[in-house]
């Protein structure tokens, strides 16, 4: 049954205005300050150029920890803090509590002198050296790797090129690997266009500006990202849980970094346009990348509603890899939401942890 609204008294009006002023203050705080993200204690154990390898301080006694350490490799065009978003909602925290010896490779932000860096350098120089350090610090000759987005592409390339280097388990999250379907999503449509010239872009900018990458990602869902995101925040601005979660995510999203120019050019030309990895024609520093040589146990996690890496870009790799133990796991959610959204702790993390736990001792 509905009731007629009461007559608004001056006192009520004053309270309402006060409430709006409070909300405006909260809004101002969210837009002008950074949330405390990536707070889990860690130590820096290795650096090379801008790349840093961190070791998270274990929270479980050594005799209860899994024997095989886990190295997390995030994409090269964003900060990796989303893996450790905020206390109480952090994949890093979750895995530490479940007894993993955890390492994070942060690629850092490329500067003008890094414009010539390619996937070849990430896969054959940086990653093997970071792994060498991880092995030394952990004391284990075997390790697991979790790669997310372009981090998943890098870890896949590494797994195929260095199958005997001790990689036991490989977890891929929203991995862009197969670009055979040129109609699958906005990115591939834009970049497949003949007039889209990655060479000219890089010749102009040196490195691919973070702002352009950010625009590209947001433009795939323009109304949600530029308007809906803020309307939803305003609608929930009384809810501290939603507000703090939004603040943390916004802090991460707005911390944009460029992408090394030659890597971007390679991504567009050799992967998006020519699909060399899946066609079997990709070489890195003269070494042929043969996916059938990848033998690590493989869990390939796919976000059903991923508009950045549509599911078809990740699924095709399953029949190409040489792994005997391999599994595909579809999760409802978007590119980032499956790992950092409010449902991640119930849906994605437990599945990843359970799969890895069976293969980490």
């Amino acid at each position, binding site marked *: 049954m509905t009731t007629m609204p009461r007559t608004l008294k001056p006192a009520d009006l004053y309270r309402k205005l006060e409430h709006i002023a409070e909300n405006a203050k909260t809004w101002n705080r969210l837009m002008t300050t950074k949330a405390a993200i990536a707070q889990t204690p860690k130590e820096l154990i290795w650096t090379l150029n801008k790349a840093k390898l961190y070791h998270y301080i274990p929270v479980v006694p050594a005799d209860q920890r899994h024997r095989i350490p886990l190295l997390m490799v995030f994409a090269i065009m964003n900060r990796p803090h989303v893996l450790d978003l905020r206390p109480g909602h952090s994949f890093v925290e979750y895995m530490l509590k479940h007894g993993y010896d955890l390492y994070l490779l942060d690629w850092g932000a490329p500067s003008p002198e890094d*414009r010539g860096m390619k996937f070849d350098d990430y896969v054959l120089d940086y990653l093997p*050296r970071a792994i060498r350090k991880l092995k030394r610090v952990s004391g284990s000759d075997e390790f697991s790797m979790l790669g997310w987005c372009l981090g998943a592409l890098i870890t896949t390339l590494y797994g195929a090129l260095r199958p005997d280097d001790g990689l036991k388990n490989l977890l891929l999250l929203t991995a862009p690997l197969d670009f055979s379907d040129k109609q699958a999503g906005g990115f591939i*449509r834009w970049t497949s266009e003949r007039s889209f010239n990655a060479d000219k872009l890089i010749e102009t900018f040196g490195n691919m500006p973070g702002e352009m990458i950010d625009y590209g990602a947001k433009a795939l869902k323009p109304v949600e990202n530029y308007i*809906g995101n803020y*309307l939803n925040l305003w609608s929930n601005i009384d809810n501290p849980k939603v507000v703090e979660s939004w603040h943390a995510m916004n802090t991460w999203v707005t911390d944009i970094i460029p992408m090394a120019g030659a890597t971007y050019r390679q991504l567009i030309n050799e992967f998006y346009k020519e699909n060399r990895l899946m066609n079997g024609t990709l070489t890195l520093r003269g070494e042929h990348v043969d996916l059938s040589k990848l033998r690590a146990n493989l869990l390939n996690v796919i976000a059903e509603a991923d508009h950045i890496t549509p599911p078809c870009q990740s699924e095709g790799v399953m029949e190409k890899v040489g792994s005997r133990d391999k599994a595909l796991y579809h999760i409802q959610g978007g590119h980032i939401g499956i790992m950092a959204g409010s449902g991640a702790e119930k849906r994605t993390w437990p599945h990843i942890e359970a799969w890895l736990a069976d293969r980490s001792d």
Partner: protein
Amino acid sequence: MSQKEDPNPFDPTGMFKSMRDAGMDAWSKMMIQLINSEAYARASGTMLDAWLTSSAPFRKAIESTMTQVLTQLNMPIRTDVTSLAERLTHIELRLDDLEAKLDERSQPAPKAATGKSKETGT
């Protein structure tokens, strides 16, 4: 996310919100269709290409002027700085190799992969 409830017919704000949500959904779907279309891909590619082509002469002129000015002033130009940074990275790579070799000499090799207990990682 905002919860969708039955709008109160006497609450103009609620009605406005439900109209706004419906409008946003429709608008969002339309925009996603648009940006995923061949026409958008072609138009954005052409515009980007035109902008890069037309700005190139100005960019080159600024770069060459800046190079001349800095050289006249006996100051390092951009390529001097970047090549120095590149050399530093090469030195870092060599140092990393040296450190790895020292590690190998000073510590026993990592444990074998199979049949070991969980006592690692500290």
